């Protein structure tokens, strides 16, 4: 399929603040230039590494997962994926990973970041690798492979083990069992960073940084709560851009400023009764990593009257009260408290709960709660064929939602390999799904060709 002709490749954001993200978040969007300017050590990180530590240690971060999404959006990913496959990495592995391995191979071949890389200077020259075993295991095997095969640099992989969904959280010994692991693991990570940077951890700095991240998470959560309004003031095309500071810049002042500005705009819309679209027919719940190269999918849905009002992907959860006297312990407590919240809300299918970076999976009970709170008509789930971590469990959610009378559509594609997408096939399923949701009778047709398709043009 000619991806160049996908109708959905360009997303049009709805909120002004989101449209201006690059202005609000230069540290992320201009990080390539920032790196050259700052000259400090560069760490390649997995999402899941607490960005607060990076900020406190003043370490530049680069995220191969995000790079994978970028390469997919620029249609460069298939090139790198092909190179990785030639190396012996199988096609059924995570497409972000394949993208990175191919990129690394090119770096080694050329001696410089490859020219086809979408970021200027590619992902830079890493001085260290910060892996994370949370969410899925390719994420630590990946860096293990990079350090073995391409860049033999210092590597630390954190291992915040998650309790099983049926753990007895009321037993203080169980809590202590997991908290000990979390603490030791975090301390080791800090010790690693101290060795690599040659500096001790600046505790007051970390405290301030944690205060920032707490504040940012609290505001962001309020924004997500505002989406319960009818019509919904914010859709997924905005969410998946507004999520960037939560994922990569938690702890920075910029993140707080961004979310404060965003809150103002979203709140104003709610006060005025203004939604993403005026004729809101279907309110949808979204699960899975989005097709980063085709975020225009959400605009397409909006032309059919459908708005994604809440996503489980990266959901930050309600803010957890923590004591920042000892900010390291505070971070441990935040991880644990959020883990407990998730575990108590139906974590049977997605048990990875101990996530340091303010995001994670959602339990089945939470989703059922959302059905009422967000007035959900249907669930749209993206089965990313190379990411099992976010896909396994969706069938279970579908079963749970079906019991609650909410239909779901699970459609297949990928998050890092744009070749997995087919406009025709996916449109057919989406249209059929929305027709199914229609309360107007025996499948009221979803759109009229008389007026022609409506897309908001960039």
């Amino acid at each position, binding site marked *: 399929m000619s991806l160049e002709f996908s109708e959905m490749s360009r997303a049009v954001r709805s909120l002004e603040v989101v449209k201006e993200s690059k202005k609000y978040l230069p540290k992320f969007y201009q990080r390539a230039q920032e790196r050259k300017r700052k000259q400090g050590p560069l760490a390649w990180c997995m999402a899941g590494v607490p960005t607060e530590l990076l900020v406190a240690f003043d370490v530049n971060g680069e995220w191969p997962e995000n790079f994978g999404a970028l390469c997919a959006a620029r249609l460069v990913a298939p090139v790198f994926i092909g190179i990785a496959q*030639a190396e012996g990495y199988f096609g*059924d592995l995570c497409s972000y990973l394949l993208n990175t391995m191919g990129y690394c191979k090119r770096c080694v071949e050329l001696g410089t970041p490859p020219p086809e890389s979408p970021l200027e200077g590619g992902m830079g020259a890493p001085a260290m690798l910060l892996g994370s075993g949370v969410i899925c295991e390719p994420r630590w095997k990946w860096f*293990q492979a990079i350090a073995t095969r391409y860049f033999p640099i210092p590597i630390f992989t954190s*291992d915040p083990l998650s309790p099983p969904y049926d753990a007895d959280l009321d037993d203080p010994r169980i809590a202590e069992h997991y908290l000990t692991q979390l603490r030791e693991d975090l301390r080791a990570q800090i010790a690693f960073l101290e060795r690599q940077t040659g500096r001790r951890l600046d505790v007051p700095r970390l405290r301030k940084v944690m205060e920032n991240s707490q504040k940012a998470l609290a505001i962001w959560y309020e924004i997500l709560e505002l989406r319960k309004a009818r019509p919904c003031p914010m859709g997924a095309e905005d969410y998946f851009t507004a999520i960037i500071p939560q994922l990569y810049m938690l702890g920075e002042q910029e993140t707080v400023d961004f979310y404060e500005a965003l809150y103002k705009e979203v709140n104003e819309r709610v006060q005025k009764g203004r939604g993403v679209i005026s004729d809101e027919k279907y309110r949808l719940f979204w699960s899975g990593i989005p097709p980063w190269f085709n975020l225009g999918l959400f605009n397409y849905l909006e032309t059919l009257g459908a708005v994604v009002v809440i996503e489980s992907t990266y959901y930050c959860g309600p803010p957890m009260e923590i004591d920042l006297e000892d900010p390291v312990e505070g971070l441990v407590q935040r991880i644990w408290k959020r883990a407990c919240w998730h575990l108590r809300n139906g974590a*049977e299918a997605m*048990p990875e709960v101990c996530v340091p970076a303010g995001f994670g999976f959602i339990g089945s009970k939470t989703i059922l709660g959302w059905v009422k709170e967000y007035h959900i008509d249907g669930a749209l789930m993206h089965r990313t064929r190379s990411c099992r971590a976010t896909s396994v469990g969706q*069938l279970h959610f579908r079963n749970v939602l079906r019991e609650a009378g909410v239909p779901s559509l699970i459609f297949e594609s990928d998050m890092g390999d744009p070749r997995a997408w087919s406009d025709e096939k996916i449109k057919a399923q989406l249209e059929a799904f929305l027709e199914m949701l229609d309360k107007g009778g025996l499948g009221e047709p979803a759109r009229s060709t008389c007026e022609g398709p409506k897309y908001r043009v960039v």
Partner: protein
Amino acid sequence: MNKCGESKGDAMSKVKAICRARDARARELRAEGKKIIGYLCYFAPPEIIAAAGMVPFRIMGRLGDDVVEANSYLEPYGCPYVRNCFEQALKGRLNFLDGLVVSHSCDMVQRIYGIWKYYQKPAYGYLFNVPHQVTPWSRQFFIRELAFFKESLEKYAGQGISEERIARAIELSNENRRLVKELYEFRSRRPSVLSGPEMLGILIAGMSIPPDEFNALLKELKMEVEGRSDVPLDRTRVLLWGSIIDDPRLYELIEECGATVVIDDTCIGSRAYFTRVDLSNGVFEGLADAYFGKFPCPRTDRGPGTGRFEYVLNLAREYRVKGVIGYTLSFCDPHKLDYPDLRDYLAGHGYPMLLIDDDYTLSHAETVKTRIEAFREMLAKGSASFQDLAGRAQL
């Protein structure tokens, strides 16, 4: 399907019978009032289950069985072995199990615990959590987890489990290991007399019956195979590396192609049987060392670099193989992410590697055989340029 190799004597036909109906003994014991605890993966020590007076039973799939029921609960993109095992449960074939113990070995196995428990509602269930990194504190975590596991079994069994009983169970399993290792060494010396498929059949049987019965069977087998006469056999010796292989069909295919598996690095293989539990520092330390510290599964992080593959090289040398055949299941991240580095490391030390990727059905048997045959021919000729074969392992 005939699951085990040719047999001439009593002991081997016992093995065959067990393989044909793996649940038979467990059902008998259950009828006598014993509790049968099924387990997936090999981090939660079955010795503790045995010490609790219950019967550990390793859950395995059925090669080639259509996975249909599981499609309502479990995504098609995911370890086909786990899906197949769950399918057995959904079809009611595991209804003799009282409990389910799942080790957090890999992602998919960790996930199936919640889904299995939610839909099948076993009387007893435990997820045995295992850190990925091997560090002093993660080792302590493992030891604490052993204690919690023991406690949970005690609650279900309605009786305490003394360390002494665990020690005795370990002694039994160590005896298993010793006898199995002997059989491996015997097979290495005389591969014509004990074939690869037979060896796997023995191990599969061993994970289906209580350890003391396995000991008795192993002793019988030892005598029987020692009594067999050699036949002239010119098969190329190979090491089989891979994840879970619970059906001898792959071994049979390899033999049909003129090669023979004289040593393995697989789950139901040397990984489970070559590390003794050392009791000199106590039961928990011993179990932590054997099941966590030393258990060589790629799902455990032993750091970057190829040093972590040295033990494979040692096995290859010790068992005098000419090459390595790898077997990975679709979506198996731990093994697939080790593969390129392992392949290059082994090649660098003179051991070419062929990888077979499969979706747990071996439905491409003909193409697999072609590649194994070609590989064997190259090994026999001592051909150096075979990177093509290894690199194009994608099916």
